[in-house]
């Protein structure tokens, strides 16, 4: 039985083309990756292309957001955590929000599960998503998007029950990073998979940067490993080391030294500008950034193998 599409079009693109095709000034852009697999290289390319006025949606707004803010890419930030993990502060974010700063950032604050539910609503094209959060919190007071609904079923005590809801996110483009994909854009990922699938399904377009494009048979030997199917992907972009300074399970480790160094860099606007000039504007693409990291640095972050045991999908005799 033949079901192969004869003129099927591969979705592989270069990062420059993918960003210029799908990301425009003024867009709403989701950049996701929960500590693991942060799409840093894509963020840097947005900076290189001078894209501005973005509404950036990201659960954990960390170093790459600090960099994009400093490069004036972002006018609104929607997030549930603005911090440099446990490694210190994000200087630019603080300058843009705090009273002593220029206060030119529109910040929309949620909790993590509020953001998760916004993606769930977005992926499912729901008008809202209910969650058991927000009663008693000041968050709804500073975020009028967080609202309430009356349940049509009686509560556990037999009385009417109210519940908070959040609205969908439907970004113009979602950008995520993963270990690998095939040429058609079937994306495989392991380790922490976070909210990436939901972010992609919620978006009009999706760019997936990957450590490597693998042959079709690698993906097809394990279809359950595919967390994002081809039909939801607009462009798949090979970008080795594309998540640095975050890590890719089985490919390279987290650059904790870099995370720790960021507090000092971002605290000083001149240092931060110099960092961007060297590492982003000073490189034409991510392969030059990786070159600049140097072989010793890449070696320092390398990992030893820990292979999964295979499973049997079975074949009819």
């Amino acid at each position, binding site marked *: 039985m033949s079901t192969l599409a004869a003129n099927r079009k591969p979705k592989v693109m270069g990062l420059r083309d993918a960003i210029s095709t799908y990301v425009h000034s003024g867009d709403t852009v989701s950049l996701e990756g929960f500590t693991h697999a942060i799409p840093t290289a894509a963020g840097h390319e947005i900076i290189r292309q001078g894209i501005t006025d973005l509404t950036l949606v990201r659960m954990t707004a960390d170093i790459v957001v600090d960099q994009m803010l400093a490069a004036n890419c972002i006018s609104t930030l929607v997030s549930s955590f603005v911090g440099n993990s446990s490694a210190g502060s994000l200087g630019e974010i603080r300058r843009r929000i705090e009273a002593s700063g220029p206060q030119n950032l529109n910040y929309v604050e949620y909790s993590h599960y509020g953001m998760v539910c916004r993606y769930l609503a977005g992926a499912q094209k729901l008008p809202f998503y209910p969650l058991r959060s927000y009663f008693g919190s000041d968050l709804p007071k500073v975020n009028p998007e967080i609202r309430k609904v009356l349940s049509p079923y009686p509560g556990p005590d037999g009385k009417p029950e109210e519940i908070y809801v959040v609205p969908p996110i439907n970004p113009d483009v979602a950008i995520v990073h993963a270990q690998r994909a095939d040429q058609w854009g079937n994306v495989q990922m392991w380790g922490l998979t976070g909210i990436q699938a939901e972010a992609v399904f919620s978006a009009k377009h999706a760019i997936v940067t990957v450590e490597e494009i693998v042959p079709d048979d690698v993906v097809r030997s394990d279809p359950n490993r595919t967390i994002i*199917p*081809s039909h939801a992907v607009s462009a798949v972009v090979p970008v080795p080391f594309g998540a640095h300074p975050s890590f890719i399970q089985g490919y390279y480790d987290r650059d904790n030294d870099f995370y720790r160094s960021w507090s000092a860099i971002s605290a000083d606007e001149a240092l931060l500008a110099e960092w961007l000039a060297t590492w982003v504007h000073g490189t034409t693409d991510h392969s030059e950034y990786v070159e600049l990291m140097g072989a010793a640095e890449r070696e320092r972050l390398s990992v030893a193998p820990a292979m999964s045991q295979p499973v049997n999908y079975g074949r009819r005799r």
Partner: protein
Amino acid sequence: MTTTQSYSVDELITITAARELVDNSVVFAGIGLPTLAVSLAQNTTATNLEVIYESGVCGAHPSELPSTIADAVLITDSEAVLTISALFGYVLQGGRIDVGFLGAAQIDKHGNLNSSVIGDWDAPAKRLPGSGGAHEVLANANETFVIMRRHTARAFVKELDFCTSAGPDRVIAEGGTPRSRGVTKVFTEYGVMSRAGAGEELTLTAIHRGITAEDVVAATGWELQVSPELTVIAPPTEAELALLRDEIDPSGVYLR
């Protein structure tokens, strides 16, 4: 239906449906004739067609024709397997399906479908399987093709015994906003009925050779409108039949 050609009703319906599939679209297909129609289209006029099965399989490369939507041969060598909640929530309700395929026990002139009961729901003369995912396919796929092999007044009815799956006209009547065009094509042993979407009746637009519009009107439970541009469907070509019989279903799993 009788025909002097050497092909079956199933082959005729499959080939007619395949010709209506447009390239680069995403199709939500059940097992049986839709599987064959999609496969034929992928080999002829819609070579970049994508098929997603209700079981969650995307990019299937089966070693043989699957006998259910969840057949093990659909999974092995496929490109992705989604959970049921992702399939229904993110893909179907998410609005990512261009064309759904359904069957039903009863259909009315607006393409509303009954697959629940014959008779009263509370004490039915015949209990049918029910919705399965049919309700959601009709509600969410941009358009739905229906295959009804037997064209009779008991199936093409004025009033459904029960509306399992509602087309956009009924959605609007209840005050909702339709998310789909509903049924746009119905393929039967007699030909094709078509409508663009809400507000339109299913109209006879094409008939198979040897059939008259009067035959079809007589076999339909409502006053079937006949298109002034009624066409006669070109019979299956040698190439189409050869593909179906020799490449797609050589063991005759579905073709009788």
